[in-house]
């Protein structure tokens, strides 16, 4: 089997804009699923609302496209209702960290056995480019026309502090690393949180000096530093990119988890 066999072909083409990074994240996730050897009938994809959350609709398994921000609460019910199911949640930065922020920290605290993949495009894409909790300070959006004045959330730090067993961040540039991270997350009991920074050329890039899709992808390449390496650079006073995006595995641990199949 290949990852392509997991697509619900009669639903394609998808709604994503040309140059969108979400498709890359879906492919990486499905490659990990395929490598896990999960069966379609034992796997469920769950999402909230937003561009990211349309992903389950393109996958052949049982899927629940729920209300805005609440995917993790629905997924908690599905997983505890039938722990034999492998449950993967697709979400976005607005869905997960704004309206769904409380469910996010509590799902991490419970350390419930879910794989949560967040496509972080740093903007509300589907509603036309409003600022989100991960919009960088100074970035332009339709609701931050003079530049965002608010500090952004670091979703990985949040997940780690709240108790998730596995946390990592990559970007849509880092296809192999991202796939491996999702795979490791799926292998780790408890809540696995994988943040994937993605380009949104339509609603983020064109307002923030990324004229071409590749400009933003190049930015994600050149401004990311492995978290361990970054620590070393900081300690040794070396220069690193500004702004810098730490990537890699933030934590992998074995704290008590909820809903693990026995």
């Amino acid at each position, binding site marked *: 089997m290949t990852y392509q066999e997991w697509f*619900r072909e*009669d*639903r394609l083409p998808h709604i994503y804009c040309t140059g969108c990074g979400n498709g890359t994240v879906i492919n990486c996730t499905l490659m990990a699923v395929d490598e896990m050897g999960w069966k*379609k*009938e*034992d796997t*469920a994809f*769950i999402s909230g609302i937003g561009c990211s959350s349309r992903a*389950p*609709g393109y996958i*052949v*398994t*049982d*899927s*629940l*496209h*729920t*209300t805005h921000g*609440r995917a993790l*609460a*629905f*997924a*908690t*019910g*599905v*997983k*505890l*209702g*039938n722990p*034999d*199911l492998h449950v993967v949640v697709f979400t976005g930065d607005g869905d997960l960290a704004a309206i769904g922020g*409380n*469910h996010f920290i*509590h799902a991490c605290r419970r350390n419930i056995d879910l794989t949560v993949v967040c496509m972080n495009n740093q903007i509300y894409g589907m509603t036309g480019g409003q600022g989100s909790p991960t919009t960088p300070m100074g970035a332009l959006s339709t609701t931050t026309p003079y530049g965002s004045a608010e500090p952004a959330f670091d979703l990985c730090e949040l997940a780690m502090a709240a108790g998730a067993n596995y946390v990592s961040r990559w970007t849509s540039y880092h296809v192999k690393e991202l796939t491996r991270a999702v795979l490791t997350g799926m292998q780790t009991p408890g809540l696995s949180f994988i943040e994937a920074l993605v380009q949104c050329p339509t609603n983020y890039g064109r307002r923030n000096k990324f004229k071409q899709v590749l400009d933003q992808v190049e930015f994600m390449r050149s401004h990311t530093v492995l978290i361990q390496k970054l620590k070393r650079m900081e300690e040794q006073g070396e220069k690193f990119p500004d702004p810098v995006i730490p990537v890699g595995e933030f934590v992998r641990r074995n704290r008590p988890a909820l809903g693990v199949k026995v």
Partner: protein
Amino acid sequence: MTRTDFMQGNTACAEGALAAGCRFFGGYPITPSTEVAEHMARKLPKAGGVFIQMEDEIASMASIIGASWAGKRSMTATSGPGFSLMMENIGYAVMTETPCVVVNIQRGGPSTGQPTMSGQGDMMQCRFGSHGDYSVIALAPASVQEMFDLTAKAFNLSDRFRTPAFLMADEIIGHMREKLVIPDTVPMQGRKPLQQGVLPFHPDEDLVPGFPQFGKGYGVHVTGLTHDERGYPCATSPALHEELVKRLVNKIESHRDEIADYDVVNPDAETVFISYGVPARSVQQVLHDQKNPDVGHLRLKLVWPFPDSALRIFKNAKTFLVPELNLGQIAREVQRHTKNEVVMLPKLGGALHSPAELTTVLEGYL
């Protein structure tokens, strides 16, 4: 073996759910409903079920919908403010045709209102509280026994019609203790599974589609967006949206008489009380004390869909008296279905209509 107990209404509700095979409860503490959750927390793990205290009522409602798709009979219990928070996901359950039971131990509202006092102010919220057009099923218990019986029944109705079913109780019934007879078994009518080869949202003749439980290989896509019979989003088709919403309403409204559940006393009477929930007890006392065949009583055990045909049983009726612990929510519904005089007998604050109070009103109509 049938057993008896002297039990609180909220506990009886939980026992009714357990007897009906409820094996998932997601909830959040709120007065005066908390005893339902507490009893489920004690009993569910021993029955092989799952109890989870969620972070709020929004998540509670979400969790029981998720568990329902995973194949569990699921329930939550709440009161006023929590019920308000559940509204969006209740609409999601309606749109996705997810069976689940929501218990509302009503208290005085609006807002924080009277947490420890009774009320029936959420009757219209339960009917219309989420956005968009839809129908639901709502039961109204008037005794501890009915907290058990009607909770169990709510699961059957919810599964039969694939819709959220509400137990609209109140603080008085929820907190009072009476003798409860717990039967060996309760009537069970489960979900009909989706037949192979049938589209997941293609309805049968009764307008209800078969249930494609997760994990059974259906590969169903479930969305709150307007969807076609495959379950795929088609949110911009006017015809499809109209067809879907009308079916969601008609699958319930066209079965009003099948769903209806009420008691009738003195059907030839000219003056008739209509009650549901705890005020029924005041009316029963009045009828018991008066022993007057000219005073009738229609006691609704199920309020939504409104059983309008029951009004016509009272062929000689001239006046309907409707005591409620709100400002006339169901009296207004009665008015829609009759040309007879409808007298609202509203009461707020938490106390029940006293028999003396109702007798005084009644004497003005005899």
